[in-house]
């Protein structure tokens, strides 16, 4: 039953993490880029193994605790891609910002390992373990800029709130296991106590996904963390948490009893998240914090996919969101100077004139985040909202659409700053960071390609996953 192939991706990543950390010990010159290269290599091998076993149905390991089914495979490919992007972004950033590249890469790989565990299991305990591996490495990653006050503050807040939520997860776990004795996700309709337990677990996951009102930690942590880490935090934990929710809740959502209450609750949470994220972003003056709130809003849109039980839509949205968000933050990183980050809207005033080749991609990413048609962002929203309407959640879709309208306001505000305001004319030199520009280009390509000809990706998704489109 336990075929080695199921474990291969996970092993590749963990081995890579250990290797990077060991390398750190033996390395002579401090600023070498070896750790990043090793990370990328590890991630790519993991990706290769995942793709290798694409055809077969679920590959089990650890007595069925770890299962590599299609949803897991897709998400792992997304996490691998994200990992590569973050590593490449962090390459020069680390040197500039006084960030140790070795630990950065090591922790990144561990976090990816945590993600892999979370998404490829049907067992709550393993989910908990994956979640904790991810969380712990994320706390460390957030606080990696040791001399920077905001980084440490963000890490402290993240750690305390994270462990606080973990405690709820454990207590929920206890209730669920205690009463029903079974740990499988989505295991039928539990009794009242078990339902309470499930509620606690879902609340903890809501924390991780930054669903309102559990999202309060997110803006501060995203803003405080080094930007490459922010990229990681705004995308990965959400996708993983939502995948788990999808696995756990879709069987329950369909059943009559509990569903009668769960679906409206989830919908309410989704609407709350969307509006909280979008409204809070309206008056932001820092681009980084604005993008942080925008990512909270996108958690809301992703939650709509869960409510609509649309795995395909979720995966497609996650992929598109990876490109949009990573691209936007990538441009943000490209703007930062030596030792300080330029994130305020005034910094990017008149960027359209000063650096058109940076302003244009950011504009396209923002338009895609806002959901303007020719871009992939629109298509992703189209599929998710379409699935919600097909499931009859028309009110939810109307709310989501209105929330998107609010989001258009602040995305365009950034474009106004870049193109329609005159910034100071001095020309900063271009940062020679080929890796970063590669990432931005890949994201740009992703957003445009998925927007216009996503044909092949869609067919693969449709074959593998149930869903509306």
């Amino acid at each position, binding site marked *: 039953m336990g075929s080695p192939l199921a474990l291969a991706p996970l092993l590749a990543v963990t081995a890579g993490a250990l290797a990077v950390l060991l390398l750190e010990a033996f390395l002579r010159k401090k600023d070498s880029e070896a750790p990043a290269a090793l990370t990328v290599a590890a991630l790519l091998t993991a990706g290769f193994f995942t793709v290798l076993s694409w055809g077969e149905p679920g590959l089990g390991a650890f007595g069925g605790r770890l299962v590599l089914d299609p949803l897991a495979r897709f998400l792992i490919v997304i996490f691998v891609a994200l990992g590569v992007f973050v590593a490449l972004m962090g390459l020069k950033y680390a040197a500039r910002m006084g960030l140790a590249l070795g630990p950065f890469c090591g922790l990144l790989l561990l976090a990816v390992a945590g993600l892999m565990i979370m998404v490829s299991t049907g067992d709550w305990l393993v989910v908990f373990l994956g979640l904790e591996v991810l969380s712990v490495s994320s706390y460390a990653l957030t606080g990696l800029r040791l001399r920077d006050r905001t980084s440490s503050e963000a890490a402290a*807040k993240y750690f*305390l*709130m994270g462990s*606080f*939520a973990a405690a*709820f997860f454990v207590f929920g776990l206890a209730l669920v296991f205690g009463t029903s004795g079974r740990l499988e996700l989505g295991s039928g309709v539990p009794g*009242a106590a078990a*339902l*309470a337990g*499930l*509620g*606690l677990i*879902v*609340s903890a996951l*809501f*924390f991780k996904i930054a669903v*309102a*009102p*559990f999202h*309060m*930690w997110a*803006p*501060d942590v995203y803003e405080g963390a080094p930007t490459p880490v922010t990229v990681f935090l705004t995308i990965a934990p959400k996708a993983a948490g939502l995948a788990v929710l999808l696995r756990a809740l879709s069987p329950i959502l369909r059943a009559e009893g*509990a569903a009668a*209450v*769960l679906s*409206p*609750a989830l919908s*309410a*949470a989704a609407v709350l998240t969307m*509006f*909280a994220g979008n*409204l*809070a*972003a*309206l*008056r*932001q003056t820092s681009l980084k914090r604005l993008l942080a709130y925008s990512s909270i809003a996108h958690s809301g849109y992703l939650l709509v996919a869960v409510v609509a039980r649309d795995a395909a839509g979720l995966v497609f949205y996650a992929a598109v969101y990876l490109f949009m968000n990573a691209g936007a933050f990538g441009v943000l990183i490209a703007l930062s100077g030596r030792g300080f980050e330029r994130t305020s809207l005034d910094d990017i005033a008149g960027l359209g004139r000063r650096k058109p080749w940076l302003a244009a991609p950011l504009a396209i990413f923002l338009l895609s985040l806002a959901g303007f048609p020719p871009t992939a962002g629109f298509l992703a929203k189209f599929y998710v909202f379409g699935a919600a309407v097909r499931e009859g959640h028309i009110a939810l879709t109307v709310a989501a659409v209105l929330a998107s309208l*609010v989001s258009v*306001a602040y995305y365009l505000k950034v474009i106004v700053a870049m193109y329609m305001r005159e910034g100071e004319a001095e020309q900063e030199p271009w940062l020679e960071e080929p890796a970063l520009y590669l990432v931005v280009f890949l994201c740009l390509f992703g957003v445009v390609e998925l927007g216009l000809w996503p044909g092949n990706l869609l067919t693969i998704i449709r074959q593998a996953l149930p869903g509306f489109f």
Partner: protein
Amino acid sequence: MAEAFWLIPLIPGAGALVLLLFGSRMPRRWVSWQSTLAVLASFVLSAAGFARLVRAGPDAPALAKTLLPWIASGSFVAEFAFSFDRLSAVMALVVTGVGLLIHVYSVGYMAGDKAYARYFAYLNLFMFFMLVLVTASDIVLMFIGWEGVGLCSYLLIGFWFDRPAAAKAGLKAFVVNRVGDAAFIVGLLFLLTAVGDPSFAAINAAPAAGLVGPGLATLAAVLLFVGATGKSAQIPLYVWLPDAMEGPTPVSALIHAATMVTAGVYMVSRLGGLFAASPAASAVVAWTGGLTAVFAATVALVQTDIKRVLAYSTISQIGYMFLGCGVGACAAGMFHLFTHAFFKSLLFLAAGSVIHALGGEQDMRRMGGLRKRLPVTFPAFLVGAMAIAGVPFLSGFFSKDAILTSAFAGGHYVLYGLGLAGAVLTAFYVFRMVFLTFYGEPRAAGAHPRVRESPPVMTVPLVILAALSALAGLAGLPVLLGGRADLFGRFLEGVVVRTAHRLAASSEVLLILAAAASALAGIYLAFVFYRGSPALPARSAARFPRLYRLLTGKYYVDEAYEAAIVRPLVRGAELVYRRFDLEVVDGALNASAAAARGAGQGLNTVQSGLLRDYALAFLLGVVIFLGALLL
């Protein structure tokens, strides 16, 4: 040659196009020759057409020619279809004939003007539209001419556009015309929906064919007539004509005396079938005509600007024409139109010659004693004055008499009384004008040093028109006075509805005497006032101060329109714009945007940065979520 009647409008049209595009680059002689020849060509073609119709006898079919389909969509069809029957012939002859003389006159009058080519271009354009109006065989095509002449009158009134008064007058003319045209269109819609076929023949036949009931006929006819009041300057839409005097005098002569303003009368005659089918509408026409005749005449009594007097006189005379049509005697109306075209354009051109001689002076109080200095203009003016006053055996007498006789015969005694009173007033103000301008001592000789007679190019048309004014009456000589019976009336027999009232010879003689008496009374009164005891006008004005001020203020109609319609509309619009557009709709938009920003601001303050608050929110979330799940 007559078959090419449809060229009548197109020749001046082509001329206008050439002048508009290349006029400024052509030498002046070319411009004047080309434009005049174009009108001459049309005149010749009209005459040929007229001759063909006379030869062919009363019941011969009209010449007809459909050039091209125009608008066709579903049941709405309109074509470029022209026809030339006896009514069109009369109108075409008048338009081209008087037009030709005025073109010649303009060569002299406009000699000094720098925009010479543009003037003649507009004049030719006007001829094109007017001739389209009279030769159109379907009502929609006529509407092209109808609004086209309105456009040309706008362009020509505002010809000297650098003078604000002229520009304002042009705008007023066009907009007031458009008010009439709006009513015209609604009437048109009623007709087209009921009849389906826009041609005049179909419309006139519709009441008989039961397509148009009496109610609908009345409604459509009245609406069309409101359009006519706009175009022909009757109550209530006459206010633009006095201001239209800002334009050059030949323009006033051609457009605001002889041709355009009579378009309304032509339309009413052309749709005789429709108007006959609804006595109510005819009554409206008659009464409007009658009241306007008297109303305008009273205002003309006290005007001091020579052209304003003539303007009000025109309004009054057209009132007579509508009076004629209203009482069922469109032939009489058309006959008065025919004669009026000659003596009114004569009076305008003569006035123009006076103004030209006095270097632009138009105020009669600063004229006087021009008899000797303008040897040709004065006699022409006198003939015109006698004609319009209704002095026996001149054209005015016969045409006005025909209308009054028809009114009396039709039993409209009140209208007859109005007509008679109007005749007296007309005679009075016309001869007041003659005495003030030509008799007595020059009141402001200093201001006009060299007063010389106008050049022949201006005086020759005056002489021709004087002759026509004198003799035109013979065309409609009533049977009684020995002429072959009513030549003009019989000519229009086939086309224009003519209710035949037979009056006893004796009463007809009485009517003729009454008409003659009214004319002479008017002239005598004017003589007494202005030649007999010069102080009399001042004393009578003093005795009735309020009446005098009312008349000189032209009954304050302009001010009433301004106060009742224009100002409230503009003030109301500004209020609505500020209240509704800016405050209500934009207010709602900005409010919702502010609400969103406010909510954002609220959320940002809640995001206090303190860990405690985050944990509290988390706890709250758990409690609510569990509550929802379990309860």
